[in-house]
């Protein structure tokens, strides 16, 4: 596949009078790790919701590997390889950590592949240093471990091509943070998965993402390396206010 992996074109969303996303166009190449940054309220999560089928588009289109995703239900989008996490970690609290990992594998259509799923889950538990908690209910996990489990679950979908992580590093301790970074780097380098990472943690974005897209007030304001976009006056103004511009 030589073309782009993700093509989001003119994606628009209005909530009453507010334009949350105004003709957002973002293209991600296969195997790319892209950062998506911007001040609070810029419309990043709304964009993620539309990408993954949790919000309808008022205008625009979304394609993954050339195939249209617009209008598909969220579960089908995930099964086709566009998977997401949530800003506030969502896990199945009354199910064990291992069961949490098996669900996406079973759901994404691997008939009879239970053994393969078990092996894959064991691998991820080891990489994510969650092994000792495998049989515990997810409700006993700390905030950071929930975030990590949430991220691991997405990798269990065999077809994952683009993984959208919404603020995966917010409020988690440094050890878990390192485990998550290692997991992303591993899945990117060994399995060629692409990522779109929404984050405010600039040090991590600089390390993981060769290119970033900046959203301000519902629009794409800039795109380039983090250092390039950080010099753009409109980006500086959006983050620091006009006095600093």
């Amino acid at each position, binding site marked *: 596949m030589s073309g782009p992996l993700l093509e989001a074109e003119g994606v628009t969303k209005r909530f009453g009078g507010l334009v949350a996303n105004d003709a957002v166009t973002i293209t991600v190449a296969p195997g790319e790790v892209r950062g998506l940054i911007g001040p609070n309220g810029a419309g990043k999560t709304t964009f993620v919701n539309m990408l*993954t089928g*949790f919000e309808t588009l008022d205008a625009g289109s979304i394609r993954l590997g050339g195939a249209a995703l617009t209008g598909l*239900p*969220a*579960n*089908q989008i*995930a*099964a086709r390889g566009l*998977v*997401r996490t*949530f800003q506030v970690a*969502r*896990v*199945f*609290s*009354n*199910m064990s950590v291992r*069961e949490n990992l*098996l*669900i*996406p594998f*079973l*759901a*994404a*259509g*691997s*008939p*009879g*592949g*239970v053994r393969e799923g078990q092996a894959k889950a064991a691998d991820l538990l080891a990489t994510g240093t969650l092994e000792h908690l495998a049989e515990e209910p997810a409700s006993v996990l700390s905030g950071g471990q929930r975030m990590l489990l949430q991220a691991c*679950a*997405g990798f*269990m*979908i065999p077809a994952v091509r683009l993984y959208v992580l919404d603020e995966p590093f917010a409020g988690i301790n440094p050890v878990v943070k390192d485990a998550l970074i290692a997991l992303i780097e591993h899945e990117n380098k060994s399995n060629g998965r692409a990522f779109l990472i929404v984050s405010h943690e600039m040090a991590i974005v600089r390390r993981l993402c060769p290119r970033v897209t900046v959203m301000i007030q519902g629009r794409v304001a800039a795109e380039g390396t983090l250092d390039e976009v950080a010099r753009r006056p409109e980006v500086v103004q959006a983050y620091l206010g006009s006095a600093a511009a």
Partner: protein
Amino acid sequence: MSAGLTGGVGAFVEWRRVAAVLAMAAPPLLALPLFVSEFTAHVLAISAYYVILAASWNMLAGFTGQFSLAQHGFAALGAYTSGLLVYHLQTPLWVSIPGGVLTTALGGLLLGLLVLKMRTIYLSIATWAFAETLRITLSAAYEFTRGDLGLSVPSLYGHVRPVVYYYTFLAVAALCLLFIHVMLKSPIGYFMRAVRDDPMRAQSLAVDITRVKLFAFVASSAMAGLGGALYAHYVLTLTPSIVDFSEMARIIVMVVIGGLGSFIAPIIGAPPVYALNTWLAAWGEWSMVAFAAIVIGLMRAYPAGLAGLISAVWGRRRSGKSFL
């Protein structure tokens, strides 16, 4: 993604354990009626009937998180469908009873579709309204249903010796529980529990939550319908009072006392609750007060029900640690 819903049925079942539990439970349950009076055998038979209803509701509310208040309605729908087929069309029972199951399965699908986008209290109210509508219809269409006069139906075996019906309800309850166990130990069971815990997260992980919910509605309704249809041919007279809310309340109490969302809840919840109901009935209206007091006391002490109590004691014995 149909493979995701039906693929790998029974993938996680440990058949040896299932066989061991059945082998241990069967002899005492089969021998039980030999040592009791006819009245007690009757109480046992109805208890087994309530195990079916409680298990079916536990599958829907406890494992899939759909807190429906229409389970007694589906039991009644199964009972009346079979009864009316015999009454109006002189259908043999081997046709009318499956007819009742089929009707309730379709009814479950219809109700499931209606409440698909509803959550929590909204779903409860809508399903309750469905059951009330059924009750009023059964009462108002008396020219067809005989309403409060009661619909007479023939017995299953040409007699009503309680012991035989006890074995019948016991066998059906065992089959229903086995079905539920196999479902829970299959991908579909994982999806049901995922939908209960967080439907949005389940959807984001490729689970087709629409089909999972509809499956739970259809399967649990059909199960209640089967129980109801058999019940009809044991009690022999049907009135709309079987759709009274107190029936639903009884099912809820059985499951919640057993431990909502625990597999054994209906087994350990239904018989004691029904026995207690019967025993307290001697006090008339006051029996409800005594019953409520017992329920509140137990819930206050053990919110996870008898299943929680058992696992707490079991856990303490095994690990030697105190429990919270």
